[in-house]
């Protein structure tokens, strides 16, 4: 072996064939390096082994770049791309055509571009749902809540998690509000338009908070309807403030 050839033999330590972290591969893979520079949190992705394998095998130039340009066109800023990709790394396995169809569908339902950008930012999995599923979900909310089209649209823009989460808790909560807590339909609609997070609240916490507010603090239903934020706050905050006010004598 001549001297020149000897120099050309690169004798780095070999890459470990399998590990639990992506640390060992980061220096040798341009894809991973560019992702880290974008702001993607690899320590969270490596907890899902399939995702990590997928990311390693992808080539930055061919696949990832196109999807990133597509997301930028939608309106997601550079510094927000990192958090988005950390949550929804599966978007790299989607077809670009499918993503375009879904965005076109949302636009056909009269969601403006800014609204779509906001929804995608808040609910990263939105673009991974097929058009049928999105259609079903929107239809469900329109029927269940019996709101006008514009109000449903505003609701979904404010809390896009409704479309990506499962529907069972929402159905349960609707039943709870109607039967257990005794609110009328128009009252529920008013509260939801003000505070949409009520629909996804925990059933037990909801009943405990309502029990304290209605029975101990003796606040009637129509006052609660005016300020549905009580269902959003923690119970102990409400309790502390109420006890403080009774201590002052001003309950």
């Amino acid at each position: 072996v001549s001297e020149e050839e000897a120099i050309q033999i690169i004798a780095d330590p070999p890459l470990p064939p399998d590990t639990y972290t992506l640390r060992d591969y980061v220096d040798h893979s341009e894809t991973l390096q560019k992702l880290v520079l974008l702001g993607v949190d690899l320590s969270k992705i490596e907890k899902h082994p399939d995702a990590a394998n997928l990311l390693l095998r992808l080539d930055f130039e061919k696949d990832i770049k196109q999807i990133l340009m597509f997301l930028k066109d939608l309106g997601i800023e550079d510094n927000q791309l990192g958090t988005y990709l950390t949550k929804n790394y599966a978007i790299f396995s989607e077809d670009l055509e499918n993503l375009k169809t879904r965005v076109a569908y949302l636009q056909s339902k009269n969601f403006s571009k800014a609204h779509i950008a906001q929804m995608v930012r808040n609910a990263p999995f939105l673009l991974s749902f097929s058009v049928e599923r999105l259609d079903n979900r929107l239809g469900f909310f329109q029927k269940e809540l019996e709101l006008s089209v514009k109000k449903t649209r505003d609701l979904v823009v404010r809390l896009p998690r409704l479309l990506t989460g499962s529907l069972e808790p929402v159905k349960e909560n609707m039943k709870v509000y109607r039967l257990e807590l005794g609110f009328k339909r128009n009252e529920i609609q008013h509260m939801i338009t003000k505070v949409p997070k009520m629909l996804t609240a925990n059933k037990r916490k909801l009943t405990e908070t309502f029990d304290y507010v209605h029975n101990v603090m003796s606040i009637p239903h129509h006052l609660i309807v005016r300020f549905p934020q009580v269902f959003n706050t923690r119970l102990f905050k409400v309790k502390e403030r109420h006890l403080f006010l009774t201590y002052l004598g001003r309950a």
Partner: protein
Amino acid sequence: MGSRGLARLHGLFAVYKPPGLKWKHVRDTVELQLLKGVNAGKAPAPEQRVRFLLGPVGDGEEKALTLTATSVPTLTNHPLVCGPACTSLKIGVGHRLDAQASGVLVLGVGHGRRLLTSMYNAHLTKDYTVRGLLGKATDDFCDEGRLVEKSTYDHVTREKLDRILALIQGSHQKALVMYSSLDLQTQEAYEMAVRGLIRPMNKSPMLVTAIQCIHFAPPEFLIQVQCMHETQKQLRRLVHEIGLELKTTAVCSQVRRTRDGFFTLDDALLRTHWDLHSIEDAIQAAAPRVAAELERSLGPGLGTQQLQDPGRPWDSRGPSSALGLESCAG
């Protein structure tokens, strides 16, 4: 940044546990807040690694390849690749408080956990304010249990209550002497008894060193108890037995620990102060007192130290005016 924050985080501090929370949740919440504070520092500058890269040297027809050692920035220890620097802290809990009781809860971080065992072995007394309600009896002695019986309480007066409490204190005094395994015939033991310093230094059942009634407005009454080796359930049972002695029934509506050894309500941190800075300040403020107290309690035989005891925490104090925000307007 992270390691600097961790270096100072060793010692004891007290936290105010609100009622309705399990002590384990309190400990986990405090741990999460501390982790947030420790991991919030700036990321360190990117490291450099030495890599041997091939580079062409010399131009012309003869191109020689040489290896040059260059230091190249590497991302192996970037926080986004490895995760946060600190993922768990070791926090231990002193004397536990059950879910419905509230008050001072002592926690130890890092090397301070060793002091927790010393505190346990020092067998210091604790102060409780217990609020009772006459006329009801439930199965678990507190007012949210299943009702067992109801009775009238018109015949109960303050003098009767004081008499009962004095009886209890007297009987527990005898038990104190018995469990402390001291020979009362010696002069030192007599002096200690005169100053009220006798207490058992090993395992014993619940012992009450002092008990007095602070507030009496039938059906409610408030008593202050100084005790050791107790559980909150036994305190509630004590309220129940007081009711039985008064020929009526009583349940306990609130148990509040106002002092645990040398940590008082003023030292306990409120929920709003459960973050890195306040806890570090609290640890530093409490450190000298902790050291002094443990030295005093765990070094018996040193005569000079025992003769000087300014303000021992278990001297019977006046009724504490800290009625607290959880009481209904008394």
